[in-house]
C-alpha cells in the first residue's frame, strides 16, 4: 500500500468522524472509494502528492456531484473537471469530497444549503460562516489540510475568520473560473482554505495561471511562492478607518489592535488611510451580484439537466415556473428577483449602470491608497465572531452586512486573505490583508510573518 493510499484512508476516516458537522455532501462510502482510487492513480512526482483537498460543491469534479447546495442540481454530475480541480489532480492531490455551501454560494452562514446547515466546529450552536462553510469547517476540524472554496463577496475569507483558518481570495483573473458554477461572473474567484498560510498558498500556486478556456483569466504564469521573511522592514501597511466603525465588536477591535502592534514590531510602518466609498460597497454588491446571478441561473430550467418538475403541465412556461419555483430555495429566488428587476428596461440606468459607476469609485479608492506608497491594507475580516445559527435568517440585510469588510475586494478585483489573529470568548476571529492586483506574493510575505508572531488561539 502506497503512502498516498494510506493517507487517503486516514483522510476518509477523519471526514467520517466529523459527520455531525454536515460539512461534506458526498456519501462516506462513495468518498472513501473515490479517495483510494485517486490515491492509486496519483502522480508521485506531483508537488501536492497525496494531499487531500476538499472541494466546494459548486466546483465541477468528475468524482462527485456538483449540487451547488441546491435541490435543482441534486444529482447533477459534471462531465468534466474544473480547471482548478484538473490542476490539483495533475499535482497529485486527492479530491476529498464535495463540501456543503449556501445554495449557489448565496449566503454568509451555510444555512441556505438545501441539504441542511453546516455546524461550527467549535460551537455547535453557531454557523461556520459562508457561503463556503463546509470547506472552512472541514479544514478547521483538521480533516483535510486544505480545501477549495469560492468567493463572490467574501465567501472564503468570512468563514475562514469564523472558523479560525486561513482563507485566500486571489486577484480576479489569477485562477481560472472554468468549471466554477457562475454566480456573479465579474466577482467570482476560486479561493483556498488552509490550516496555515503555507498550505493555502501551495494549493493556490498549483491552481493559478493562464487558462485558454477562461477569457477573464490573465495570461500569467502560476503564482510563485515567496519565502518566509525575517521581518517586515520596509512594508507600509494602511489601516482604513472605515473598517473600524464605532459599533465594531470590542473583542474584534482588541484582536486587530494587537495584530497591528505586532505588525509594527515586525518592522512595518502602519498608517491610517481612508477608503471613502466603503459605505456603498454592500448596496453596490447587492445590485451587481444578483443582476449577474439572475442571468447565470437562467440555465437551470429543467430542460437539459438537473431536476425537472413532474406532472401534467400546460406548456413550457409552466415547466419553467414549477421547476425553478420548487428547485430554488428562498434566498436564491430573492436574488433572482432583485437581479431581474435591476436589469429591467427602465430600471437599468438607475440601478445596474449606477452600481457599476460606484464600483469604479470603490476600485479607485484602493488605487489612490496603493499609489501613495501603501503596500497592503490591514482590517478585521468580519465585524463579529461566528454568530448563532438562525440569528440572521429572518433579516437578510443583517446577514448581508456580515460581509461588509470582505465584499470590497471582490468589487475591486483585489487579492485578499484572512488569517486567525485571536479568540473572542473562545471563538476565532480573522484579520484581513488586502493588496494591489497580482501582488499576492507581498501579501503572503506579510501573512507568513504575522502568522508566526500572532497568538492566534489566545483571547484578545
Amino acid at each position, binding site marked *: 500500500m502506497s503512502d498516498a493510499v494510506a493517507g487517503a484512508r486516514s483522510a476518509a476516516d477523519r471526514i467520517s468522524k466529523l459527520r455531525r458537522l454536515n460539512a461534506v455532501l458526498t456519501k462516506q462510502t462513495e468518498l472513501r472509494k473515490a479517495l483510494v482510487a485517486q490515491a492509486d492513480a496519483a502522480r508521485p512526482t506531483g508537488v501536492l502528492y497525496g494531499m487531500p483537498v476538499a472541494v466546494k460543491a459548486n466546483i465541477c469534479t468528475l468524482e462527485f456531484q456538483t449540487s451547488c447546495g441546491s435541490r435543482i442540481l441534486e444529482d447533477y454530475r459534471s462531465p468534466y473537471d474544473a480547471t482548478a480541480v484538473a490542476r490539483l489532480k495533475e499535482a497529485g492531490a486527492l479530491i476529498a469530497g464535495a463540501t456543503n455551501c449556501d445554495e449557489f454560494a448565496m449566503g454568509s452562514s451555510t444555512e441556505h444549503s438545501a441539504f441542511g446547515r453546516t455546524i461550527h466546529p467549535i460551537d455547535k450552536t453557531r454557523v461556520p460562516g459562508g457561503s463556503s462553510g463546509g470547506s472552512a469547517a472541514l479544514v478547521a476540524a483538521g480533516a483535510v489540510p486544505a480545501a477549495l472554496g469560492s468567493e463572490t463577496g467574501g465567501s472564503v475569507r468570512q468563514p475562514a475568520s469564523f472558523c479560525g483558518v486561513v482563507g485566500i481570495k486571489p486577484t480576479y483573473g489569477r485562477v481560472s473560473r472554468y468549471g466554477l458554477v*457562475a454566480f456573479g461572473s465579474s466577482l467570482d474567484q476560486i479561493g483556498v482554505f488552509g490550516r496555515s498560510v503555507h498550505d493555502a498558498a501551495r494549493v493556490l500556486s498549483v491552481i493559478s495561471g493562464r487558462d485558454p478556456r477562461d477569457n477573464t483569466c490573465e495570461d500569467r504564469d502560476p503564482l510563485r511562492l515567496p519565502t518566509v521573511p525575517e521581518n517586515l522592514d520596509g512594508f507600509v501597511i494602511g489601516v482604513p478607518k472605515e473598517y473600524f466603525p464605532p459599533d465594531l465588536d470590542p473583542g474584534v477591535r482588541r484582536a486587530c489592535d494587537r495584530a497591528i502592534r505586532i505588525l509594527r514590531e515586525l518592522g512595518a510602518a502602519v498608517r491610517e488611510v481612508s477608503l471613502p466609498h466603503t459605505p456603498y460597497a454592500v448596496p453596490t454588491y447587492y445590485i451587481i451580484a444578483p443582476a449577474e446571478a439572475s*442571468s447565470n441561473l437562467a*440555465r437551470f430550467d429543467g430542460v437539459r439537466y438537473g431536476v425537472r418538475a413532474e406532472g401534467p403541465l400546460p406548456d413550457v412556461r409552466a415547466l419553467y415556473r414549477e421547476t425553478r419555483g420548487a428547485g430554488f430555495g428562498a434566498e436564491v429566488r430573492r436574488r433572482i428577483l432583485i437581479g431581474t428587476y435591476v436589469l429591467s428596461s427602465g430600471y437599468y440606468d438607475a440601478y445596474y449602470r449606477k452600481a457599476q459607476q460606484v464600483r469604479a469609485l470603490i476600485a479607485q479608492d484602493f488605487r489612490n491608497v496603493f499609489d501613495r506608497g501603501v503596500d497592503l491594507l490591514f482590517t478585521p475580516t468580519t465585524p463579529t465572531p461566528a454568530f448563532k445559527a438562525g440569528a440572521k435568517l429572518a433579516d437578510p440585510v443583517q446577514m448581508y452586512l456580515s460581509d461588509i469588510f470582505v465584499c470590497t475586494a471582490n468589487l475591486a478585483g483585489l487579492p485578499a486573505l484572512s488569517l486567525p489573529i485571536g479568540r473572542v470568548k473562545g471563538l476565532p476571529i480573522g484579520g484581513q490583508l488586502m493588496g494591489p492586483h497580482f501582488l499576492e506574493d507581498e501579501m503572503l510575505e506579510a501573512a507568513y510573518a504575522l502568522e508566526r508572531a500572532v497568538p492566534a488561539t489566545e483571547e484578545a
Partner: protein
Amino acid sequence: MTASPSGWETVIGLETHVQLSTRTKMFCGCSAAFGDPPNTNVCPVCLGLPGALPVPNEQALKLALRGALALQCTVHARSVFARKNYFYPDLPKGYQISQFEEPLATGGTLGFFSPERGFVMASIVRLHVEEDAGKSLHDRYPRTTAVDLNRSGVPLVEIVTGPDFRSPGEARAYLLELKHLLEYARISDCDLEKGSLRVDANVSVRRTAGDPLGTKTEVKNINSFAFVEKALGLERDRQIAELEGGRPIVQATMLYDSKANAVRHQRTKEHSHDYRYFPDPDLPPLVLPAEWIDEQRATLPELPAAKRERFVAQYGLPRQDAAVLTHTRAVADYYEGVVHAGADPKPAANWVMGEALADAKDHHDTLRVPAATLAELIALVKGGTLSHQAAKKVFGEIAAKGGDPRVIAEALGLIQVADAGALSAWVDQALAASPAEVSRYRAGETKLLAFFVGQVMKASRGKADPKLIPAVLQEKLSR
C-alpha cells in the same frame, strides 16, 4: 409586384442574420457543420453546462470584421459582448451572447438596383456579432418538442439597414446584392436552405413620402428569396386595407406562412420580451488590434460593384453583361482568365455568358472547359479555322471529355475548308439540289443568296468557310 398601390408609400427596413463561414462555433471548438445527426456537435460550452465559459473564435471575428469593411462600415476597435436574456428550450444558457450598446460596426452602405428607382444606396445602421440558438423540432415526435443543439453557438452577424426600401422588390434586390457581396468576400455561403441567411423585415406604409413613418410591424420567418416579395407584399396590402378601413396599425410581430401564402399575427405573449441586456461579464470588451483591421482591409477582394464598373471600363462591355459576368466571383475570375489567355473581351463575354454558363447550370455550377482552352477555341473561330456552329460542338465535346480544341475539331472533321476544289464541288451539289431557287435567283431574286450559303454549309456539313462561299456562288450563278 412592383410599386405600392397608388396613394401609399411602403417603407421597409431589414435585419439579416448571416452565418459566418467558420469551421468551428463562436465560443467553443465544436464543429459548425450543417446536417450532422442531432446533438453530436456539442460540448459543455454550447450545451450551457454549469461552469462552462465562452472563448471567442478568432476566425469568426475576422470574418465579421471583413463583412463590416465590405459594407463600408465604421469599425469600432472596441466593442462589447452583451447578454440577451430570454427563456426558450433551444437557448441552453437562458441568454444569447450578442452585442447591444457597443456593436462591432455602424454606419455602412450597400448600393443596389431598385426595380423602380434605379441605383439606390441602402444605409447599414449596424453590424454585430452573435451566437445562434439551437433548433426546436416540433414535428419529430408527437406532442413533444425535441431540441437539437448542433446549431447552438454557431457564429452569426446581424446586419441592420435603415428604413430605406420602398417596395418588396427593393427589399429583394438589396438582399440579393448583400448575398452576392458576402459570398464574394467569402464571409458566408448565404445558403438559405441551411438557414445561413435569415431575414426579418420591419414594414410600414404612409400616405406620402414626406410623412412621418407609419406604425411598423415586424415580419419574421421569411426563409427564401422568392418569399421575400410575397411576404412583404402581403403585409403591405394588409396594412393598407386596415388603414383604408379606418383601423390603426398595431405594432406586432407577423409570421409568414409560405404554405398558406399568408401573414398572421404571432401570439403577442410570446414576444413581449424585456431582454435585460447587460455586458457579458465572461467576455472582456473586444479590442481589435489595428494590424488585424489593416490585414482584413488589405485582403478584401475587389467587391462586386467595383468589379462590375471595372469590366465596363476595361473591357468595353455593356453594364448588363458586366453584371452577369460579375455575379459570382468564380464566373468573373473565369471570364478574366479567358481574356488574359488572349481572347478578345467581347467574344469572350458572349462565350462565357452563352455556352459556358449554360453548361455550368446543368453541371452543378462547374465551369468545365478551362479558361485557356476556351480562349484557344475562340482563337480558332477568329482565325477562320472553325465556324461558330462547329466551335459550339467542339465546346460541348471538351466540356464532356476534355481535350485540345484543334485535335477535337480535326477528329470530328469540323475544320473549315478553304480549298477551292472542295468548295466548288459543294456549291455545285447545293445548286443541283435546288433548281427552282436557282431559276428564281437568275430571275432577279438575289436575296436568295443567303439561302444558298446555308445549303452549301449543309452540304459541307459545316466544314466550308462561310466567308468564301458567296463569291463562288455568285460566280456560278451568274454563268
